């Protein structure tokens, strides 16, 4: 297995699945401005996903392009973290997920700018600027809801508690990551985790929320072992492409 292909899939699938989930909010967000914001963030994620999956296809060299990788792989072939595939839940859950994801992506892309792989570095340089906006946006909402009414505080805390365990997987390491760290392609996950914790803890503190203890640490996404939620998400995302292969507008 080509390490670089696999790594590009992990990054690209995180972005793609996050985009698809965020897109579900379109026409359903609590206010018009938020509807636009979530759609815009989804669009940024989709943009990064297209670059990363296109690159994965080139690296693989088997003739698969971004569409083939996005639409014609089954759930077990997806390499995204579990965090992004979790259902949107209420607005607080979506914001907790976005805070954790964007803090991770922002720090990760920041480091990847110095990657020994030029294409990954170029994509990261572009995507990190956008991640900064996503982090800013989700931080604002987490603070607003956490430090808001009794009800908003309760729901924000519930959301943080529910999503917290899934952040563990973002910084888990395996043979692939170890080899890529060695080659200077990827940053060491442990160093990323410290940075992530300090960003997220600062937001939670300001939001008067309690940082949960790690109760359990589900993983498996990087190996294609997902929650059942991904299969439904993919079914909706892929059905049109599969029903009309090669169709053009």
């Amino acid at each position, binding site marked *: 297995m080509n390490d670089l292909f696999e790594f590009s899939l992990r990054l690209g699938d995180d972005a793609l699945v996050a985009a698809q989930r965020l897109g579900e909010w379109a026409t359903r967000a609590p206010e018009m401005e938020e509807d636009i914001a979530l759609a815009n963030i989804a669009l940024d994620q989709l*943009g990064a996903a297209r670059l990363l999956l296109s690159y994965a296809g080139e690296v693989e060299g088997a003739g698969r392009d971004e569409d083939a990788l996005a639409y014609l792989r089954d759930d077990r072939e997806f390499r995204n973290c579990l965090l992004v595939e979790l259902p949107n839940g209420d607005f607080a859950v979506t914001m907790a997920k976005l805070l954790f994801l964007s803090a991770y992506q922002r720090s990760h892309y920041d480091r990847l700018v110095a990657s020994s792989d030029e294409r990954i570095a170029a994509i990261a340089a*572009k995507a990190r600027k956008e991640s900064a906006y996503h982090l800013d946006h989700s931080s604002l909402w987490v603070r607003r809801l956490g430090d808001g009414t009794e009800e908003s505080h309760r729901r924000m805390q519930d959301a943080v508690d529910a999503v917290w365990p899934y952040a563990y997987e973002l910084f888990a390491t395996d043979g692939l990551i170890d080899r890529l760290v060695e080659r200077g392609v990827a940053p060491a996950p442990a160093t990323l985790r410290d940075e992530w914790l300090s960003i997220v803890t600062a937001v939670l503190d300001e939001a008067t929320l309690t940082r949960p203890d790690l109760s359990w640490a589900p993983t498996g996404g990087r190996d294609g072992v997902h929650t059942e939620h991904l299969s439904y998400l993919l079914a909706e995302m892929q059905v049109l492409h599969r029903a009309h292969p090669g169709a053009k507008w």
Partner: protein
Amino acid sequence: MTDPRAAVAAVVDPEIRVITIDELGILRAVDQDPATGRVVVTITPTYTGCPAMDVIRADIRRALTAAGHPDAEVRTVYRPAWSTDWISDRGREKLAAAGIAPPAPVRAGGVVPLTLAVRCPRCGSPETEQISRFGSTACKALWRCRSCSEPFDHLKAL
């Protein structure tokens, strides 16, 4: 036959039609092979997911064909990443004239967006507030002027 650089530079952004792709800073290079006449245009997106890129590529080819250069290739590069600092002074004037507040300079090295006072493009008042940090296109935020009460778009510093 006209100069390919001039032909491409005059292509307007499909979403903000008052500004050219050159003034917006997304046109990176126009090179012509003197032997074959083939033109290679290099552009970079404002945002990775910018849905206008396909239209921009098509518009560039159309402009080159009209200028007598049918043999053209449009390449997209991502590095260095586009910054609003690349918008020319002329471009900024045009944005303001169209009611879009131009971006503030990006803080050196920083990617954390800051909220500086954005002047209302209509009345010039600094008494403005952000309504939504995301606007009608990926590159804009929505603001409102507290002096003249008009809402306006603001190109986000990136």
